[in-house]
């Protein structure tokens, strides 16, 4: 089975597991299976309208799936997908002083 590697902050939603076995097909299928198994992950991975959050990166091996076939990237037995956070933030735009 393919596996999805879970980053540290999301392991609280996978019972502490750093990896979850998922069904194959496409990357979208694999992530769909992941969030069916662990529904509390959904709000941290997807926006309200069902799009992957912009700061959530999904890698197949060492490649960002955005540079492969995106959600249609094929995922087979033995493949490993990794959810990698882009860590971003910053203050409000207007300077306060």
């Amino acid at each position, binding site marked *: 089975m393919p596996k999805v590697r879970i980053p540290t902050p999301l392991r609280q939603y996978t019972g502490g597991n750093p990896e979850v076995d998922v069904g194959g097909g496409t990357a979208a299928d694999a992530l769909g299976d992941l969030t069916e198994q662990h529904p509390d992950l959904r709000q941290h991975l997807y926006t309200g309208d069902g799009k992957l959050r912009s700061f959530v990166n999904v890698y197949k091996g060492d490649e960002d799936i955005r540079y492969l076939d995106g959600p249609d990237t094929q995922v087979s037995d033995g493949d490993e997908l990794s959810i990698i956070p882009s860590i971003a*933030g*910053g203050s409000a735009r207007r300077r306060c002083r």
Partner: protein
Amino acid sequence: MPLKIGAGDVGHIHDHAKETYPQECSGVIVGMDVGEMKIVVDVWRAENTFEEDERGHRFLIDPKEYIAFEKRAGERDMDILGVYHSHPDHPAEPSDYDREHAWPGWSYVIASVSENGVEDMRSWLLKDDRSGYEDEPIVG
């Protein structure tokens, strides 16, 4: 749950915030979550990869640098406990932009820095429903 962070690591964050002022600095805090508190063992600087002219109020850590941090922490039997960053000329409080980009369970340490130095430093935790933050006490 308090965040225990020693004076040396506080000093590293303050130094980083002052060096990059008026741009934001960022990095990760690593250590152990022992249940009743998180113990910071080290802080590692990250490169701010946001577009240069926006770095006064934005930071971004490259995913590949994050992968390297996770690997380095794992090799030392530690976890990434959270992220620090600075708010130049702004309070040490998370913005809406911070909230939109935050990860659950992580400590978000924010240092308010001005031309006079670091004015304040606080730590925050994202609420489970992503609606806001809870103040997380910092202990020495």
